């Protein structure tokens, strides 16, 4: 397993190098002065000069790239054009909000997605199966911002049950320990804090869950149908095993293994999707930070957030590979 882990880490090196090169090149592939294009019409000459200095546009491209790498090595992602604060600190401040939202949404998606996938598979081609299939297709087809809007209208405005924006009520004075609002509330044994944080997280969480649960449900259904035609299932039935044991011990276990990959990759993809959800719900995470940066044409922030999302994505894929190898010895043998 150690050899496998080391191998995967080494393979990550060249890809990380290329990812950095892509991010670095983004601003520089445009013809003309990148500082002027990036800042758009209406930028003052001081702003243009500031960005030009920050991107070191007066130096040759390789020197710019190495200076960028040198900066990264000690956590320097540049300074925000709007606030003047280091982008790294600003992102770190907002990371817990995004992670809290995504992790909760993933857990909820597992709880919803797996059972509906199994149900759909064992009642394959029944009315229930068709209904689940259509609903999950709607789940993967609905734009996140539309679902967010509809939930806001129904639960926030018409019914008035849940808050429609932000992460806590204005009267709540929280003393952040971990930065994860619900966890902080639990640590301080403050029920009001926990309830307030939960009431704020439900709607944005549902938006992210919808997509993931639908994807997972569809995947589990297809895998389950495929697994149930395998020889070992026939053997299990032939030796007189109860149908329940066939379904869960032999069927679901094998169908869920590849689902690890889907959940991992979609979790990483969801971090990107959080940009839309966080924007609609004014959720103070990296996604909303990136949206504000687009509005303000704050290029260092866009660049920094892109890198953080890419790193989180690569880290998740690595974890998925490791977990998969841990669960399936065949993979471990083949890869190492």
């Amino acid at each position, binding site marked *: 397993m150690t050899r496998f882990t080391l191998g995967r880490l080494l393979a990550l090196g*060249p*890809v990380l190098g*290329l*990812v950095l*090169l*892509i*991010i670095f090149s*983004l*601003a520089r*592939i*445009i013809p003309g002065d*990148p500082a002027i*294009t*990036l800042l*758009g019409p209406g930028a003052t000459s001081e702003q243009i000069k500031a960005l030009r200095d920050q991107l070191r546009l007066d130096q040759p491209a390789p020197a710019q790239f190495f200076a960028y790498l040198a900066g990264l090595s000690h956590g320097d992602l540049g300074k925000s054009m709007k606030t003047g604060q280091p982008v790294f600190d600003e992102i770190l401040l907002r990371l817990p909000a995004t992670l809290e939202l995504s992790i909760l949404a993933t857990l909820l998606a597992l709880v919803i997605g797996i059972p509906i996938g199994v149900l759909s598979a064992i009642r394959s081609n029944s009315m229930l199966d*068709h209904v689940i*299939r*259509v609903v999950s*297709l*709607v789940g*993967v*087809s*609905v*734009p*996140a*911002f*539309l679902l967010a*809007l*509809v939930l*806001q*209208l129904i639960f926030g*405005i018409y019914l008035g049950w849940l808050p429609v924006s932000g992460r806590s009520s204005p009267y709540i004075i929280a003393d952040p320990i971990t930065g994860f609002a619900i966890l902080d509330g639990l640590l301080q044994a403050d029920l009001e804090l926990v309830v307030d944080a939960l009431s704020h997280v439900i709607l944005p969480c549902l938006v992210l869950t919808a997509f993931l649960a639908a994807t997972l449900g569809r995947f589990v259904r297809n895998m389950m149908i495929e697994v149930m035609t395998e020889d070992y299932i026939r053997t299990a039935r032939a030796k007189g095993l109860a149908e329940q044991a066939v379904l869960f011990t032999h069927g679901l276990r094998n169908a869920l293994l590849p689902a690890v990959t889907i959940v991992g990759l979609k979790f*990483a*993809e969801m*971090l*990107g*999707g959080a*940009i*839309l959800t966080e*924007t*609609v719900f004014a959720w103070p995470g990296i996604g909303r930070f*990136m*949206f504000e940066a*687009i*509005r303000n*044409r704050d*290029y260092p922030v*866009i*660049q920094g*957030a*892109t890198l953080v*999302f*890419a790193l989180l*994505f*690569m880290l998740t*894929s690595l974890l998925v590979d490791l977990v998969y190898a841990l669960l399936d010895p065949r993979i471990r043998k083949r890869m190492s």
Partner: protein
Amino acid sequence: MANLLHFLQRNALGAVGAAMLVAMLLAVICAPFLASQSPIALDMARKLASPGAGHLLGTDYFGRDVLARVLYGGRFTLAIGLGVVSIAFVIGVAFGTIAGFLGGIVDMVIMRFVDAMLSFPSLVLAIALAASFGPSLETAMLAVAITLAPQFARLARGQALSVSVKPYVEAAICIGVSTPRILFRYILRNGIGPLLVQASLSLGSAILQTASLGFLGLGAQPPLPEWGADVSANLQYVREAPWVALAPGAAILLTVLSFNLIGDALADWFNPRKRNLR
């Protein structure tokens, strides 16, 4: 073709998707007859009017007819979907086929680059690209196409790898056919089936991604009617006039849903196990 029609008959969901798409195409083509106004005609006296006789889907903050904006916006959206997938197809398939056929260092360089592109959440890469190119519909389309291209490259490489060891390709190499001709006439032509299926499956996500960029202000710029941008422009009036934002949003949902229904059916169609199952 007759086979496909027969299959659609038994695959109800695919047929529903196809019917939705045809209805949408007809509505969009007949936009001048269905909507009495231009999508950019202002009428400040009737701003945020409720859906009713004059305006079936009401009007927006500038008194523009929402139905007209949805219908004309549909023209853009469908063209965007096709345009984005075409660009992604050409870029991805070209690089993938070359990588698979030539192999060696070319293959390694191209595929490592593809791996790197796939290390970004697709929406994030599209945003970063669109933000550096400058906000406009064309750059948003290009940005989404670039993020979709690696999927085509991977698939095309696999196809090229399996086709290039076929005896007829070896024969072509032996009689001295030029490399570009081999790539086009032998490799691409014989491996294009799954690539076209992938293209049809990508249409929905292409539309969804471009609309998302529009929603974030990186796509179509006002007053161009584009569904994503229209939802975001009307967010602030959602309390008093929800139809203004919901109508273009619902239009995106229905379009993407119809493409996904068709894509699902196509995937079943190309999976012989499932085709025979029914």
